């Protein structure tokens, strides 16, 4: 995958671009795709591609080779420049790391989080980093996920790990598996650790804000006006919610401690949305007409109208 992109396309440049244009394009795109500034899931990948492209195009020698042969290493045995560049920190190609449950090797982490961060440079093995995606229900309840990692015991083999993800995890939190990183480079050294970053998928009903859960609850005008008890979904199951009389659309109700579990458990917030029925029959229309006549009401008082 790596090293096969058109470097000019990656940088949005014409093949005849000047050195200055290349530099300016790099600066602009590096800001745009820097994973600390761009939270899109493909930002990391794009930032890496950009670095790879710039590494070649900024160097007149490498660029010439690339223009001639389509690769910066010229004719002869093909060496993937990304591997040359990064492999000290990450010996497994990214695609080797896809597991039964979709474990994405996180190259950026190993480059910048691990490589430049908290790795053990001496005798111990390097730490490995990756990401797993879980559903919000799994985050709420905790889950056992099966991962496949390249094994170091036998050539080309895979090691299956069943990892218990504790309840209440949030996107961005990390799980550490001691001793599951790279083996030590010398005999007797400790292997590195495996760090798994959690990514909680978007839920079809619920939104998460820190520890709290938000859900919109559609109600009828009479439920809002007269009050009522309505069954609402929460991550822990269905709950009876009392809607007080005289409720309005946009009002928020709170179910205490029905959010994500943790040292300070979150709450669930319910946003009321009043939905009016379409009158389909003459009798329906008559009901609205009765209300119009019997319940004079001007919702535009505040507009000065």
């Amino acid at each position: 995958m790596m090293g096969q992109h058109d470097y000019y396309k990656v940088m949005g440049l014409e093949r005849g671009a000047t050195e200055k244009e290349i530099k300016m394009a790099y600066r602009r795109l590096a800001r745009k795709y820097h994973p600390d500034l761009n939270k899109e899931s493909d930002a990391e990948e794009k930032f890496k591609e950009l670095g790879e492209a710039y590494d070649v195009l900024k160097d007149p020698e490498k660029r010439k080779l690339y223009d001639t042969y389509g690769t910066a290493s010229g004719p002869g045995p093909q060496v993937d420049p990304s591997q040359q560049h990064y492999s000290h920190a990450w010996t497994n190609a990214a695609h080797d790391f896809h597991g039964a449950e979709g474990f994405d090797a996180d190259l950026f982490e190993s480059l910048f989080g691990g490589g430049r961060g908290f790795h053990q440079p001496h005798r111990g093995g390097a730490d490995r980093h990756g990401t797993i995606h879980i559903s919000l229900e799994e985050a709420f309840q905790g889950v056992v996920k099966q991962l496949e990692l390249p094994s170091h015991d036998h050539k080309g083999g895979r090691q299956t790990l069943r990892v218990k993800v504790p309840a209440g995890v949030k996107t961005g939190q990390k799980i550490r598996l001691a001793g599951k990183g790279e083996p030590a480079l010398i005999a007797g050294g400790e292997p590195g650790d495996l760090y798994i970053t959690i990514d909680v998928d978007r839920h079809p009903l619920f939104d998460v804000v820190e520890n709290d859960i938000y859900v919109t609850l559609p109600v009828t005008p009479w439920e809002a006006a007269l009050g009522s008890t309505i069954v609402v979904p929460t991550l822990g199951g269905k709950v009876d919610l009392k809607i007080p009389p005289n409720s309005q659309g946009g009002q928020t109700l709170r179910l205490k401690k029905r959010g994500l579990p943790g040292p300070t458990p979150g709450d669930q917030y319910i946003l009321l949305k009043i939905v009016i029925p379409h009158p389909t029959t003459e009798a329906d229309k008559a009901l609205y007409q009765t209300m119009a006549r019997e319940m004079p009401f001007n919702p535009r008082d505040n507009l000065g109208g």
Partner: protein
Amino acid sequence: MSKSTIVMGVLVDDQSSISFFDLCEKQGISEDVLLDMLEHGLIPEVSMPTTHMEFDLSMINRIQSACRLQTDLGINSPGVVLALELMDELEQLHSELRVLQRHVKLV
């Protein structure tokens, strides 16, 4: 052949901390650079940074972010702090917007 192992995941502890000097060493940054970033307000809850302070996981993540931005984009300390503050605000607005957009679209 793969053999199956069950491993308990240990959540990287929010409570564990690292000292100022250890952080500088592991992160490969000079003490002056870190102190400078902290004095520019890199970590909002740290008002009086000293070399005796300890950093928890979220602080470490923020410092790593700041170091990457400084190195990769050539931004100075005030610029890095400004960028991260704006990112915080953006993230908060995005999460509020997500809730409200869903609210508006539903039904």
